[in-house]
């Protein structure tokens, strides 16, 4: 006979093991290149003081965050505390996270090099810079031995999966043309298309939400949140729910 689960009915005891805290959205990059914490909930966003800056690119998984400064890369924990600062090739970077949100991959276009953040340290990846034949637009980490990247070939885009250990391209898949693009840790792709943001999950289903501003870049803010840096107006925050997308505006930081 199967064991029946018994719940500890002393709810107060249950609460004692738990608790209440301020909900966190994640981190954003403002127009001045400053990383700021964002707290609150959808529709009631509170932008906090500066965490780091000036930053060229950044991404946050919820468990860790990575920020590219002029010639270094900084890793922060979930609270925004710096846990590592290392030299890195000059210029911009692309970042992606593993599904468990604990590891990150970085691509530095100026050097054509890749690095993997795992177990508290960056490891250079010996991948051929020409492996994608063209510059990646977004990058992700599917498991310990595979990265995925979205690359542009002429007017077409491809999702390419590469084995880290030998640099072999395992498969590629055509993608529709779009603007700014971001690979999420669960394999979903966020695309900025004209007048909308589109989320394509690995199963191929699609959700979209209107956004009538041109999007210049997409950054992972934290679990379920993507920042859309727009050409005009305040940056937008895309909230990814199970069955719907919502767009909010990120308030101007005053601190």
């Amino acid at each position, binding site marked *: 006979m199967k064991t029946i689960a*018994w*719940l500890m009915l002393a709810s107060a005891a249950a609460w004692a*093991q738990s608790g209440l805290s301020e*909900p966190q959205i994640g981190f954003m990059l403002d127009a001045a290149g400053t990383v700021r914490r964002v707290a609150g909930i*959808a529709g*009631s966003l509170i932008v906090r003081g500066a965490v780091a800056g000036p930053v060229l690119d950044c991404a946050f998984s919820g468990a860790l965050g990575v920020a590219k400064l002029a010639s270094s890369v900084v890793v922060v924990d979930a609270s925004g505390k710096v846990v590592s600062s290392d030299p890195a090739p000059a210029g911009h970077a692309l970042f992606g996270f593993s599904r468990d949100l604990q590891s990150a991959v970085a691509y530095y276009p100026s050097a054509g090099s890749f690095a993997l953040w795992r177990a508290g340290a960056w490891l250079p990846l010996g991948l051929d810079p020409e492996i994608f034949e063209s510059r990646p637009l977004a990058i992700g980490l599917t498991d310990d031995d595979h990265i995925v990247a979205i690359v542009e070939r002429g007017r077409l885009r491809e999702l390419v999966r590469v084995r880290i250990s030998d640099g072999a391209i395992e498969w590629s898949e055509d993608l529709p043309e779009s603007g700014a693009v971001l690979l999420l840790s669960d394999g979903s792709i966020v695309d900025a298309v004209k007048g909308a943001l589109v989320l394509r999950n690995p199963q191929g289903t699609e959700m979209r939400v209107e956004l009538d501003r041109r999007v210049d870049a997409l950054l992972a803010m934290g679990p379920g949140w993507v920042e859309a840096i727009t050409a*005009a*107006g305040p940056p937008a925050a895309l909230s990814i729910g199970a069955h719907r997308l919502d767009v909010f505006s990120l*308030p*101007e930081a005053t601190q």
Partner: protein
Amino acid sequence: MIRRCLIALALPLCAVAQIQVSVYSGGTETPVTALTNVGSAAVGDSIETIFRVRNMGASSVAVQPITVAGACFSISSAPPYPYVLAPANFVEFRVLFSPTAVASYSANVTVDDFQFIISASGTAAPSLTQVENGSAVSLSAGNSIDFGRILKNTSESLQLTVSNSTASTLAVGRIAVSGAGFSGPTGITTPLALAPANAATFQITFAPPTAGQYNGTLTIDDRTFALTGIAYDPPFPAASIVVDASAATSGTQQGLEVQLAAPSGVSGPGLLHMDFQSAVPGVPDDPAIEFVDSGSRDLSFTINEGDTVAKFGSSTDVMFQTGTTAGVITFTLTLGNETAQTTVVIAPAAVAVATASGTRRVSDLDITISGFDNTRTAGQMRFTFWDTNGNMVQPGAITSDFGPNFEQYFANSTVGGAFLARVTFPVTGDASTIAGVDVEMTNSAGTTKLARITF
């Protein structure tokens, strides 16, 4: 008259002692002679001559009252007497010549012991009059013709008359208007001949395109008259704040517009301000209630001429956050002297849930709920667990009052009524048989039933 002057000719030479009198014009002092001509003026006009008395000696001089004796001459400005003049210093006095007839005129001027004669002539010229408040006002050369204050982009015309009050025909060669905002003359053609007792009328117009002080000149042959006018901006049209108050609930971003009752006739800045009056006892404010564009409760905007709606950057609507606290948001608009106000009531509401998830561990079930309570009264929570066969896990619903926990949390919260609750249920037995949980949260405004959370 001239003969008398010649008799006095020797006097200035012996009175030179310490003072020198000069005509001051264009930054230059020209010492007077025994007979000094100060020019001519049309009958009805005036000319003013500036004289300087300079102490050429080594000791001070007390200048006594200066006199000008002669028809149509008068002192228009003089120093207080006695005026003590230090060595090398000077003092000015002015003499006005206003001829009443076409003739030559002279006058004796006495400055202490110094005497000299000034001469001038009256010439014939048409007189100029302006009709003001129904009566004719004579204008002398150099006088100002004032159009007063008018609204920009409107116009004001004045009627002027040139007339001949002499016994001879007078020629008017040229009438011209210069200066931005002024135009004319209309209704007259020059050159023209004015017979005795005849007159001709014409109009000049002031039509300022922008607000400000305007200056121009009316020239009639060699006589000039100043033209002045001031243009002012119209007031802003009545303005109103347009917001969908019925849609205002906590935890939302709403749009707002500032609309004008008519196209604005003026450009200028405006300010929107938000105030929040909390309806929750002990909760004075909510930091999330702000304009998105400014990240504060003040937001500037601009109105351009012709606008019927305010511009916030490139957009005509502005977003604000309603926060997560029940109360009243008051918007105050200031636009020039116009003010407008509107309120948005954020009603108390049952707990709103943003996200809810469940995680199964070996001997624990974790439930995580984020949301907000705009009444800050959340407390009672009810959990009903369901097994993988769809049966309720005994003993059924588990209800507990977490009021003190929420109360303590909200007392220190910096995110308004938003919260992230994590509840862990220790499980004895096989936790994998529990598939999901229904959660209800209750506050003073009602009970919220969450969609089933699966593990």
